[in-house]
């Protein structure tokens, strides 16, 4: 029974992490309909920025996390303004080729600068070890992830549903032409959203170094996971990807625990089945745009 709870707990932590990593992609891919396979590269950037700050410059871990966000968001903003925005209206093939090119470049560049081996971020002592909670071992680090990611998710939901910016974004996504007719600066909204999504990915990358492992091949290894979150979750709201990440996280952890020999086989099969059954995702809208 306790193992079940531990698995559930680890799965939730993993899923929350995946959500923070992928929710930027949920907007670009799900809402703006741009196939950005390079999303993981931004996450990797955040992870490496955090690692360099903590390990080499001796920054405290919690001070480095916001900087990981800022660094990835800045790079995201620059790339969006200079490159991505030219490709919004292009075919999916072009978008795939472009973002795959970016992935290759980022992998080789990070390999060149930081070396190809896996990198660990020095954690503060307060985050190591476990808390015993009614006999269930709960990792402190994972608990922190759940807290941070939970707060972020709630904040995101609030921003999207309640604020002026949220309604602008929803309008811009639903119908860019009508939105710009109403005086909404659509490219600006998109650029800001894109940069914010990249920032979140960077934060997720910094947080995930401990759990997922951080090496130059991060964007390639986890690309499929991000894509699963978005395509399975659908694009109608932020809840869809959130539930999909939790499912994926728990499923992956449980699968690795109970049927370790099958490896990622289970996840891929489930993804294909769901996509065949509901091409717009489990929680998607009836009609794809």
């Amino acid at each position: 029974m306790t193992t079940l709870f531990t698995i559930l707990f680890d799965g939730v932590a993993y899923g929350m992490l995946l959500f923070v990593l992928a929710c930027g992609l949920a907007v670009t891919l799900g809402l703006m309909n741009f196939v950005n396979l390079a999303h993981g590269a931004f996450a990797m950037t955040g992870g490496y920025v955090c690692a360099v700050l903590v390990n080499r410059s001796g920054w405290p871990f919690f001070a480095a996390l916001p900087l990981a966000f800022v660094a990835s968001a800045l790079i995201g903003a620059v790339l969006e303004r200079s490159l991505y925005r030219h490709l919004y209206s292009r075919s999916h093939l072009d978008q795939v080729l472009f973002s795959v090119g970016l992935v290759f470049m980022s992998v080789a560049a990070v390999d060149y600068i930081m070396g190809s081996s896996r990198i660990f971020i020095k954690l503060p002592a307060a985050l190591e070890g476990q808390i015993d909670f009614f006999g269930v071992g709960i990792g402190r680090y994972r608990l922190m992830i759940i807290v941070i990611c939970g707060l972020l998710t709630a904040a995101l939901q609030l921003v999207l549903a309640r604020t002026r910016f949220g309604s602008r974004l929803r309008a811009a996504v639903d119908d860019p032409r009508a939105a710009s007719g109403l005086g909404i600066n659509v490219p600006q909204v998109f650029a800001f959203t894109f940069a914010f999504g990249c920032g979140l990915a960077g934060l997720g990358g910094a947080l995930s170094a401990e759990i997922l492992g951080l090496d130059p091949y991060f964007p390639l290894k986890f690309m499929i996971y991000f894509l699963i979150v978005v395509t399975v979750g659908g694009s109608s709201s932020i809840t869809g990807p959130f539930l999909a990440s939790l499912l994926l996280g728990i499923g992956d952890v449980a699968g690795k625990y109970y049927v370790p020999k099958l490896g990622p086989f289970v996840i891929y099969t489930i993804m294909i089945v769901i996509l065949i059954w509901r091409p717009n995702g489990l929680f998607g809208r009836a009609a794809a745009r």
Partner: protein
Amino acid sequence: MTAQADVGYHARQHARWHWSEIAFWLLALSCAFLFPSRYLIMTDIVRLALFALSLDLILGYAGIVSLGHAAFFGVGAYSAGLLALHGIIAEPVVALVVAGLVATVVGFLTSFLVIRGVDLTRLMVTLGIALLLEALAERFSNITGGTDGLQGIEMQPILGLFAFDMFGKVGFFYCLAVLFALFLLARRIVHSPFGLSLRAIRNNPLRAAAIGIPVNRRLIAIYTLASFYAGIAGALFTQTTALASLDVFSFERSADLMLVLVIGGAGYLYGGLIGAVVFKMLQEVFSTITPQYWQFWIGLVLVVIVLVGRQRMHRWALWAPNLIIRQLGGRKTIVAVPESDAP
């Protein structure tokens, strides 16, 4: 140009062999005698060309974007490897066809998954299938050798006559012959009414269905055929390198393949062949400059190609040859810019 009879006339006109095509194949054959010390890389190019030809069939002619075409390459590679390793079918040519057929079966079964859904779902499903097969190959390591791959494959002589030599001379001619045979078949198919209907589907599936083309059945057919081609390419890989490892399924292989086709241009069959030559040369150059980081430059090439625009780039590349031809022959340009593959 408006009359219906013109359509048939133009289609037949396009289907005729042009002298430049004959020159292309003569050039390819003459490479074998011009560069006798480079058989290994030339074999590599020919294999890649066949693989790219396979992607061209579905991407260039049917408009299916696949992110996991390496799946069939891998199935072919492992089939050929297992057949040779266990001595089930010792003769390479028969084994090649059988390996191709195994990939065809996989392609046929998965085609039902692929034709459903829109672009994005297709991308995900094709990628998922390749990853799934990779996971399977890793899981059944007692059959596939796991991460070490299949080792100790020994190839029998082709048709019992030509033994593979260490310089790769036989391997090269073998691959080139297979490529040429399959190219002839592909050429025949894409110029047939079947091929024309595929192009109609690529340009507008809805209208194609409206004039009575069975869209799904055509897509299944071409997808299955393309998987046969990819399987053969994979089998050639195993037979000429005596090696099959997990990376035959890798995402990088599928991504590189797209680059190959994009360099050459999709939708006129020669794109994959030309792209393979250019890609391998680029790879050679890049890996001599920065041995470990050549992927960076490959990525840069991809980004630049997309930003410049594929159509525009091909126009630039073809400007000089077309100019010469117009001057010399006073006729229309030979190498047409491939039609737009945007839906």
